[in-house]
């Protein structure tokens, strides 16, 4: 690891509740407002115990999660045991990591020993993975406290968390609206102050879109930067795990904790982890070249989203960045290409749910054959969106249609990568809105898959080309948060944090406080 993360409570806790507020009485309501960096700093300084921080999160979950429904599984016992271990080792004088004792919500698509892994699906109801995902083993090694598993669209397919077999999660800013998806539980948990940090996964925008509509920072790292071992595969060439947090520095600390080469994932790339924590703290973007993507604007974009985005771009200019407009002509084909590539890979990946080795089995009466049991189990175990995508992918990969659909989509993927390469010859980062609209009402798009898919319009290009991208809060539109997306070339993840850290500081200063402080009380 090239990073030497030394969280500074003075810059990271900024206008929100500072570590100092956690001293003495340490009222639970104050503790849950702390950033991850401030929580860790308070624990390291002995002003707060890891057990207190964990109990405050558990109390908050008990108070608000009936309304929000972010959590599918709360492991109070395991979390408190991990927290006690942190406190004991701190008392013994052990030097702890920069996130030691900080509670975290884990998307239920990553395996963790001792907890169920459902992927939001009936087909895995009650299944306990016998091993930890590499992301999870790294979190445990960093002494991060795992609170439990959070809700998601089934197998990460969706943009609203309404495709979960266990019921939808609600947006803490407006509980009649979606929290985004597929990492909607991760985003809602952090926005509702149930945890300062969450892990999400992003195949077409599933970290960034929920972060945007819940007013958070969310990062899809470079493909190959974070191990996929133990991440239940949806679309293997696109899936990537990453952080959701309330500040850019918190996201950087979590990113640094989970990133790095893993021999257990053959697509993990053996290069040094970009110095994301240092970049987040630099706060100087004079001379950084920023490209506004011409194609990610216009028709279909909410005027409020465009206004908040434009204001954020003007702030970048005011901070000394050199802002130009850049054209990426093939980005308009990213969405159609994605909705051929991702279902094709999903139809292959989800073949493993065959009722033979794990999960649900329906109709095994001693007479029925394996194929009949398989068909009945998959009928009962998968929800409508998963079925749609399996059938769509099977179609796109069929002989006779392969060249016209999957083959063409792979060529579009090449063209999109070339657009990025050409753009990054002119600029250091690209920017766009994260989503075309703020959070929509629950139920508004469940029966219209094509309308739902448009949520990912701006986020998909980075998945197809593999580069990293961040969403951070740009402002509010009618009381609902919207995000600005920053995109960088593969393995230049530090540029996201450099630009994001400076922009966050300037936007918070103008507002007088972090955006999340404006969220209604739950």
């Amino acid at each position, binding site marked *: 690891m090239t990073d030497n993360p030394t969280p500074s409570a003075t810059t990271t806790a900024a206008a929100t509740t500072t570590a100092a507020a956690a001293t003495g009485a340490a009222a639970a309501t104050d503790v849950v407002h702390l950033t991850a960096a401030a929580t860790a700093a308070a624990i390291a300084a002995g002003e707060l115990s890891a057990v207190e921080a964990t109990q405050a999160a558990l109390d908050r979950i008990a108070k608000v999660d009936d309304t929000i429904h972010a959590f599918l599984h709360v492991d109070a016992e395991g979390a408190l045991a991990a927290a006690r271990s942190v406190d004991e080792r701190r008392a013994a004088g052990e030097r702890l990591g920069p996130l030691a004792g900080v509670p975290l919500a884990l998307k239920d698509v990553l395996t963790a020993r001792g907890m169920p892994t459902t992927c939001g699906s009936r087909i895995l109801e009650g299944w306990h993975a016998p091993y930890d995902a590499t992301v999870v083993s790294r979190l445990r090694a960093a002494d991060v406290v795992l609170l439990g598993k959070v809700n998601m669209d089934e197998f990460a397919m969706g943009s609203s968390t309404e495709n979960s077999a266990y019921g939808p999660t609600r947006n803490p800013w407006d509980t009649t609206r979606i929290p985004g998806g597929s990492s909607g539980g991760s985003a809602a948990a952090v926005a509702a102050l149930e945890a300062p940090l969450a892990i999400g996964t992003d195949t077409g925008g599933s970290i960034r879109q929920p972060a945007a509509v819940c007013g958070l920072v969310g990062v899809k790292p470079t493909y190959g930067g974070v191990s996929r071992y133990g991440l239940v595969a949806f679309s293997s060439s696109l899936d990537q795990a990453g952080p959701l947090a309330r500040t850019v520095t918190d996201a950087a600390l979590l990113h640094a904790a989970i990133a790095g080469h893993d021999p257990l994932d053959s697509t993990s790339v053996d290069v040094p982890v970009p110095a994301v924590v240092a970049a987040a703290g630099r706060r100087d973007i004079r001379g950084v070249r920023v490209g506004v993507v011409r194609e990610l604007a216009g028709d279909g974009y909410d005027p409020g989203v465009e206004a908040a985005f434009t204001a954020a771009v003007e702030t970048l200019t005011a901070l000394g960045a050199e802002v130009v407009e850049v054209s990426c002509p093939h980005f308009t084909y990213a969405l159609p290409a994605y909705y051929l590539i991702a279902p094709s890979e999903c139809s292959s990946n989800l073949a493993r749910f065959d009722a033979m080795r794990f*999960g649900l089995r329906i109709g095994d009466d001693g007479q029925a054959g394996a194929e009949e049991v398989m068909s009945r189990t998959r009928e009962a175990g998968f929800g409508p969106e998963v079925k749609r995508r*399996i059938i769509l992918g099977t179609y796109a990969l069929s002989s006779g249609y392969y060249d016209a659909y999957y083959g063409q989509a792979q060529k*579009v993927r090449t063209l999109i990568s070339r657009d990025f390469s050409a753009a990054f010859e002119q600029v250091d980062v690209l920017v766009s809105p994260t989503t075309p609209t703020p959070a929509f009402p629950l139920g508004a798009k469940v029966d219209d898959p094509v309308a739902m898919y448009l949520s990912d319009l701006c986020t998909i290009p980075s998945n197809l080309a593999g580069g990293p991208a961040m969403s951070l809060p740009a402002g509010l539109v009618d009381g609902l948060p919207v995000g600005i997306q920053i995109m960088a070339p593969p393995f230049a993840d530090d540029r996201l944090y450099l630009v994001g850290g400076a922009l966050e500081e300037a936007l918070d200063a103008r507002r007088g406080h972090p955006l999340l402080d404006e969220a209604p009380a739950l």
Partner: protein
Amino acid sequence: MGITRDEVAHLARLSRMSVTDDELDALAPQLEAILSAVARVSEVAAADIPPTSHAVPLTNVFRPDVARPSLPAAEALAGAPATEDGRFRVPRILDPDE
């Protein structure tokens, strides 16, 4: 290019997924709408554009061929729907009439 109810039923069979008549009624028009929205991929990519299957230029990643500990059988079987004699127990895979 249309997609018929019969084609959807065929694709569901290929996917080893039973579907009800109601599901077929809903799926056929939805898949039709999705396919017409994604068909635009054929507009841009010329024959000389190479396909990209993967964003990272890695091929044939090998590890050293050395034995290492694996999951104990009992743990590997712990989540199975049915087991027998330390193995996965599965429904019959051959048709008795064949």
